[in-house]
């Protein structure tokens, strides 16, 4: 028997069609994909791996990752990481931990409900990868906390912050959406769009910045994560291709899902990764705009999506808006973070002269649209937020894009309520599937309007003298033991 046949025998052929309980009980319609294939069993995953090979390879990767950690601890590398990069990790690490953890829980769902045996096997292996990535982020957090005590979120704070702090609600909303999708949509959203198009920003561009600023552990962790991602990308690409080859019904679904997740990924990565490339690091090897154009526009859109145009697939419908936002996005995000820095547990600094020169050089629109804000701040103007922003009812980020002076806000009336969106992309996503995105709590301003001011201050992490209280300074029980709206 040839090895491909052996692989099929040991993986895809494990599946059988139940007869005692029937299809409706085994995979109820509620959980099935809307995609169609003449014979799902003929789909073949491209990156075939058996259990025994998987654990052997992954155990070796783990050994290498921990060897770098150990060396970093022994020779004190992590203690010499540039302080500004450490601040980046205070924000980034928790977001990464929960993002990976979601993917782990989300992909076992794909494994359970996907119709093709090959997708089920590959998704289960991917779920284990994602669990690994979450654990590696936890180890990194442990190392950071050990060497940079001030301001890092300890685990007991980490979950509370992720659940309740406004900073994480965009991240949380993204993954709650992704964990509750059609199983093939989850593949398109995660494997095709997020991992093929966007994780190069996370796991190649960001580690380059980390290493440039002395964080070798971060570089090693993310490069080893990216080695898993290549498997995931291959699955996403082969699923998309297979779906597109079988009829127009699939084309409209795949197109819509790619359009949706392209916009959601753009919005999330802009918020989480762009400051990590453009503002936090002292040494900046690549700008967010450059990374976006290289990995998302050139590699994904002009490469992969273009190649699939033979099946009718078009570039994402809001690509032009994304490209426009990338000109301003990191600056808009950093300004927002600066004005709310009292509510954050990491330091948000004013750009230095070197930073400003780099920003002017990399972003031609920076001078006209953003430099004035920093000149005013440098001259002593108080720019701290004293109001609450309008928050997008889809992505949960403030309606402040492409930049504050030209912020978009799009209304939709649905079932007697007015919803606001930060972009045409978010509005389009809402209108496609409004019932899924119905508001689950009142807008922040209404929730806070009736609250005791001390409760609000406590929630927003502000001490009486205006200094932030977050990170390792946040004690057990710091957040009130009461139902807290997630969108504050």
């Amino acid at each position: 028997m040839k090895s491909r046949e052996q692989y099929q025998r040991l993986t895809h052929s494990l599946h059988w069609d139940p007869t005692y309980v029937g299809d409706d009980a085994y995979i109820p319609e509620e959980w099935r994909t809307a995609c169609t294939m003449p014979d799902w069993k003929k789909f073949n995953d491209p990156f075939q791996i058996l259990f025994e090979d998987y654990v052997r390879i992954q155990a070796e990767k783990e050994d290498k990752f921990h060897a770098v950690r150990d060396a970093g601890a022994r020779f004190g590398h992590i203690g010499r990481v540039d302080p500004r990069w450490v601040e980046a990790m205070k924000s980034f690490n928790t977001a990464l931990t929960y993002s990976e953890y979601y993917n782990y829980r989300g992909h076992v769902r794909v494994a359970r409900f996907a119709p093709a045996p090959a997708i089920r096997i590959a998704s289960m292996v991917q779920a284990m990868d994602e669990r690994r990535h979450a654990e590696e982020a936890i180890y990194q957090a442990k190392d950071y906390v050990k060497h940079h005590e001030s301001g890092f979120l300890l685990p007991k704070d980490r979950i509370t912050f992720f659940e309740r702090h406004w900073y994480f609600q965009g991240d949380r909303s993204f993954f709650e959406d992704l964990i509750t999708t059609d199983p093939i949509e989850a593949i398109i959203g995660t494997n095709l769009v997020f991992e093929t198009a966007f994780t190069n920003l996370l796991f190649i561009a960001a580690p380059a910045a980390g290493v440039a600023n002395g964080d070798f552990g971060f570089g090693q962790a993310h490069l080893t994560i990216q080695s898993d991602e290549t498997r995931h990308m291959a699955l996403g690409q082969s699923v998309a291709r297979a779906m597109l080859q079988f009829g127009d019904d699939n084309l409209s679904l795949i197109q819509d899902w790619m359009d949706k997740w392209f916009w959601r990924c753009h919005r999330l990565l802009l918020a989480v990764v762009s400051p990590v490339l453009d503002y936090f690091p002292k040494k900046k090897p690549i700008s967010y705009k450059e990374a976006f154009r290289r990995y998302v526009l050139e590699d994904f859109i002009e490469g992969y999506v273009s190649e699939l145009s033979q099946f009718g697939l078009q570039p994402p419908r809001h690509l032009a808006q994304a490209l426009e936002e990338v000109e301003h996005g990191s600056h808009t995000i950093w300004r927002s973070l600066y004005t709310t820095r009292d509510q954050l547990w990491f330091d948000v600094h004013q750009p230095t002269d070197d930073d400003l020169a780099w920003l002017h050089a990399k972003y031609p629109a920076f001078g006209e649209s953003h430099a004035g804000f920093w000149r005013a701040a440098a001259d002593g103007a108080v720019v701290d937020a004293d109001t609450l922003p309008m928050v997008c009812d889809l992505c949960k980020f403030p309606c402040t894009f492409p930049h504050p002076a030209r912020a978009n806000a799009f209304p939709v009336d649905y079932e007697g309520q007015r919803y606001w969106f930060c972009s045409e992309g978010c509005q389009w996503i809402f209108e496609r599937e409004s019932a899924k995105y119905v508001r689950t709590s009142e807008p922040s301003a209404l929730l806070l309007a009736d609250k005791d001011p001390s409760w609000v201050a406590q929630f927003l992490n502000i001490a009486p003298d205006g200094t932030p209280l977050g990170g390792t300074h946040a004690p057990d029980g710091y957040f009130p033991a009461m139902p807290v709206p997630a969108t504050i």
Partner: protein
Amino acid sequence: MLIYSRILGEAAPEAFVLADDDPTVSDLLNHIGAARSAQGRLLELDLPDVLGTAKLADLGIADGDLIDIRAVGEPHPDTGVSAKPDIDVDAIRVPPDGARRLNEYEEATRLLQWHAPYHIDGDRPAHQVWTDDSTALRCTDWEAYRSPDKLYYRTYTTRQSRAGRSVATAFDFTAADSQLATVAPERVEMLREALGPLQYPDWGLCVTHQHTTRFALSSWIAGATSFMMFDELRHAQLYGRLALAYGEHHDGFDDPGPAWMAAPQFQPTRRIVEEIMATLDWGKAIILADIVFEPLHTAAAHSLLTSGALAAGDSLTPFVCRSIEDDKIRHRESASAFLRLVAGDERHGERNRELISGWAADLMPRAYAASVALAGATTASAAAVSEALTWVQAQLAEAEIGLPAIASAVEEVSA
């Protein structure tokens, strides 16, 4: 009344809440003018000929609307110190409790699953993130679960990589001297019928734990079930590899599917596995799969595969079964810990025990009968299945879950 406003060409929309249910333009502009973004300037609505006394409602401005504002005059940026609320920080802080240092299993597993309220909270079940209703079992604290094996990804892959090397060596040795070519014909005949189909029940358990891992209500439980899930893939592949190894020397090991779907000795097992796979209650699925079904099934399957193996010239199969058994023992311990958690819950334990008693009463006699049908009526298989049954009964008894009805039903099936 909630109004969003933005100063044209300057600031992103801000939220203002007006206490008056029927506010005027002046009420609104007073609020907006006090905000830092106004920079001390005179403000006007971006509408023609509007008086300050006009009601917002009369202008068509409703709750939740966004209005555009024009600022008139020179801006005066705020350079004063921000006012901060007066709270007693020390009063809200809780001193450290001096808890013990956590081990790596705890560090890598705890506090990873977030809780309601969720942003996505379901117009239908598939649109729910995590929900208490995903199992009929109730627990005061799902976060209290701990898996006795204390495995996390790093230790799991290390452990299973070692186990894989060991098993691979056994396969290599067996292949090197063509051991399976000389296995006694009666054993080959038995394995031709039984070996390949045994990959399916473990794959069924794998599918079951895909579901339990997705919906379990704490990261501790999902951590344990995900390793059960992945182990079951390992077992299904090991049974398959054994069949492939036999197929190198003997005919009839190519396609186990027809026997699994039709051979009488597998049908009771297949029915149960399909029922467990289709159990959408994740807590119930853990109990059915790993407390009741798996111990009985594995005892029967391994009795079938290993009895007389060495005497017939097959040392490989018992070695592989032993490696699988190592995993199964861990699974049973993890499932027992889950059983103790829900059965011993102070608030919900009694109800949980009633539920589990009912589930076990339904499944246990059938699982027992299926294992007997699978293993055949040999002395060795009867002893193995009986031992497994004793273990199952002991777990339920220790959890104070009613046994008499179950025991008598099993006796009836046995008879």
